[in-house]
């Protein structure tokens, strides 16, 4: 949960592009379908069919165990995706990066400290899917914040710029 400051309101919450999640999940989906497809294909061979007939029970058990294992991995991947989020409020940007189940990096930048925002969309797929990176340079001596593979980087830059201008006017 995010603890908001006084008079702070959330303007936008953004995650990495859905395409990134699809890329990470697709090997798991393929892995789920491979055993039944191989079994079905090989069962038509006479000698394999004979062997399989003797071990149907263990094959069914292994399939359910495999699917349950993949289901758990799927949710680990999804959790990493889901908890990796950028929250833009009228006062600050909070970039939460879930690096794994037990590693979490949270960077917070106040709007008035933002100096420069750069977006980059690299490649054909990124251009077609409107996916890219945002570099946020801050006035503080801290590092530049890079938000990778975000959906709609240009519109996000505009939102941040607008919030920064509004925050600047209030100071």
């Amino acid at each position, binding site marked *: *949960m*995010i603890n908001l400051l006084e008079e702070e309101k959330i303007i936008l*919450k953004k995650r990495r592009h859905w395409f990134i999640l699809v890329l990470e999940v697709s090997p798991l989906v393929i892995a789920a379908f491979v055993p039944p497809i191989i079994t079905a294909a090989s069962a038509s061979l006479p000698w394999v069919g004979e062997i399989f007939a003797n*071990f149907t*029970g*263990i094959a*069914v*058990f*292994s399939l*359910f*165990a495999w*699917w*349950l*294992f993949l*289901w*758990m991995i799927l*949710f*680990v991947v*999804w*959790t990493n995706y*889901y*908890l990796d*989020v950028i*929250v833009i409020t009228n006062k600050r940007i909070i970039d*939460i990066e*879930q690096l794994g*189940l037990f590693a*979490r990096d949270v960077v917070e930048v106040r709007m008035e400290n933002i100096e420069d925002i750069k977006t980059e969309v690299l490649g054909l797929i990124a251009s077609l899917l409107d996916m890219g990176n945002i570099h946020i340079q801050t006035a503080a001596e801290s590092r530049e914040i890079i938000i990778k593979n975000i959906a709609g980087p240009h519109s996000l830059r505009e939102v941040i710029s607008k919030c920064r201008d509004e925050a600047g006017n209030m100071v």
Partner: protein
Amino acid sequence: MENIDNLLVLGATLVLVAIVVMWSVLSFVLNYHWTRYGIEPRQVKKIKQIYLTVSVTLMILMIVSYFSLL
């Protein structure tokens, strides 16, 4: 043939125990993350339901198929 069957049942038992332990630990960890760090409680609730429904169904199927081996 009987030796192979015994070996397979032993292997299945080990896999079953490993999966149940892994599921328990991972479910606890995932639930902790969703509850503590999730920023959309309604969405988190829905995801918990999907995760638990499917995993418990698969777990039951796996246990039933294990007992059919014995």
